[in-house]
């Protein structure tokens, strides 16, 4: 296997891991959004950072739609105060990101949730 093939294989493997991890991270994002909705005044910065990471790594692994959705969410976090309308928009982004993760997993034949092995492989 030459260098290019090795890198391609590594990227594929890491991309799978990224999708599995992102699927779980969206749970964390939704929990953070629930806290914001319940009146917590911080959390938007952490959400911005999470979206930023999903955006950057998503683009690295070729998950452009997911990356673009995360980019929009990141921008919203960076430019807004946590009022109900912003939280609602971010909740929509989180749902959309979950759909994009599921679509990408289906396309690439990756199991996201079927026991601990598939989540932590």
């Amino acid at each position, binding site marked *: 296997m030459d260098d290019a093939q090795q*890198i391609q294989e590594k990227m594929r493997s890491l991309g799978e891991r990224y999708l599995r991890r992102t699927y779980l991270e969206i749970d964390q994002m939704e929990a953070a959004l629930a806290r914001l909705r319940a009146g917590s005044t911080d959390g938007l910065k952490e959400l911005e950072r999470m979206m930023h990471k999903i955006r950057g790594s998503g*683009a690295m692994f070729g998950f452009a739609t997911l990356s673009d959705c995360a980019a929009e969410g990141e921008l919203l976090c960076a430019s807004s105060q946590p009022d109900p309308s912003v939280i609602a928009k971010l909740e929509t982004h989180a749902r959309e990101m979950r759909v994009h993760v599921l679509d990408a997993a289906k396309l690439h034949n990756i199991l996201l949730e079927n026991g601990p092995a598939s989540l932590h492989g």
Partner: protein
Amino acid sequence: MASSLLRTVLYVDDEPDIREIVEMSLGLIDGLKVHTRGSGESALADIASIAPDMLLIDVMMPGLDGPATVARLREQPRWAQLPFVFMTAKAMPQEVARFKEIGAADVIAKPFDPMELGNRVVAIWKGLNHG
């Protein structure tokens, strides 16, 4: 005076996947030793033992971000002249200009081509050594 050969690079990023990719990519460069750390804090703690010729560092990290880590490093005379390159998904022209104003040798945008990253880093190094 900077060494003419780039021997050791330290890459700092809180994202483990990206650290693996960078380590793999830069590992394609013959003779280049690559160290990675997952935070600005760990980079500061270990930099003396790593003694890199160049620092590649992600901008957005929890705790000490890239610019803050670099600022702390530059407080130490030994590292004040260490060449550093930011890596970021936020590489708009005004941000690149800002990063260069604070002394970055260059800014590498994410996503990057893993097959080309090594060549880019070597080119940046060579550019520094020719003034």
